[in-house]
């Protein structure tokens, strides 16, 4: 019964969409609307000095969106940590009987620095090459997951991650208010010198903000997965700590 209603609803909705926009979307090419995106391409180098226009838009022109976005991740990290209080201390050894054995365990330890390095590279070069704070931050966090998934006894301290996350968040808001205090008197303004196009230290405030975003995303996602897997050193009564950091199994 649910399926029939669902299907009818979707079919009518699909007909509604197609009938209204069919001609517009599929048939005629959109009249060349002068979009703001094209204006942004022109404005990127003079206004922000970055080579990657998407980064210039994300960080500077529409900086508030990114602040909002980082807040959304912060929210979901808090939400997951709050809601997964029950799993604290039970760790992954309850879910996975063994973690893939010796090769995987030590293989990950070898690959770990490379993952983090690539992540850091992507964050640092956000304004020059594709990628930036978010994918780079996720890559760095992947290094942490690799540790957690390949060693079920591993416990990580979310207290440390919360501190890093808080500092990175305050750095972002601080950089934003830097614009307020300066002569430009506008939040998230790019007040630092723009430097030479294409060099690492160019595009003023953009690399700094993206570094803060990258660190914050990495810390948040690590907190999120650590609390989900319940391998949180600071919480939970029965947290089985496997003899300090990276102790042999």
């Amino acid at each position: 019964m649910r399926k029939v209603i669902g299907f009818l609803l979707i079919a009518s909705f699909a007909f509604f969409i197609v009938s209204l926009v069919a001609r517009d979307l599929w048939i005629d090419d959109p009249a060349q609307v002068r979009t703001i995106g094209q204006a942004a391409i022109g404005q990127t180098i003079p206004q922000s000095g970055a080579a990657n226009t998407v980064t210039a838009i994300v960080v500077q022109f529409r900086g508030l969106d990114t602040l909002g976005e980082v807040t959304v991740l912060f929210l979901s990290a808090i939400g997951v940590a709050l809601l997964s209080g029950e799993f604290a201390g039970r760790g992954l050894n309850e879910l996975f009987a063994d973690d893939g054995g010796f090769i995987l365990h030590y293989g990950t330890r070898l690959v770990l620095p490379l993952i983090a390095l690539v992540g850091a590279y992507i964050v640092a070069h956000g304004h020059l090459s594709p990628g930036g704070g978010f994918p780079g931050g996720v890559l760095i966090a992947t290094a942490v997951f690799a540790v957690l998934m390949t060693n079920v006894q591993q416990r990580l301290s979310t207290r440390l991650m919360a501190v890093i996350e808080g500092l990175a968040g305050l750095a972002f808001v601080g950089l934003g208010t830097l614009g307020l205090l300066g002569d430009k008197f506008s939040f998230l303004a790019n007040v630092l010198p723009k430097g030479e196009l294409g060099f690492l230290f160019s595009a003023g405030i953009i690399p700094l903000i993206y570094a803060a975003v990258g660190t914050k995303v990495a810390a948040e996602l690590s907190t999120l997965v650590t609390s989900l897997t319940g391998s949180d050193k600071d919480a939970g009564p029965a947290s089985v700590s496997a003899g300090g950091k990276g102790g042999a199994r």
Partner: protein
Amino acid sequence: MIAIVLFVSVLLIGLAAGAIFVRSLGSAVILLGAVSLLVALAFLLLAAPDVAITEAAIGSALTTLVYVLALRRTDSVHRADTDGELGMERAGGTAKGAFKGAPRIDGVARAADGSVLQSGVSSAGASRASEAKGDSRA
């Protein structure tokens, strides 16, 4: 160029339908990861490298990780519920899984439905056609 886009689109829709309708949730999650990677490829074809990297990193790697944890915690890696229509009705029998089915600390759920999970997650190479072998749950 149009040929690649057509191929990616058809594959995309096929896998997405699979992800929603396939019988076992474990396969559904793997299919979702595949769909997400294909979408990242589509973004590359649409000249959006930034978005492709982010989608690949967040969409396939991270989301799949969280889904696997969710499946593990709700004992539904092999849950064959009434929702899933596709996929063969699985015969009994156990695959040599990598993880031994240690009774969970709160073991009660396991004892209630009477079958101890022997089989592990289907081997990564299992193509969609050959479904994951596992106990068919009550």
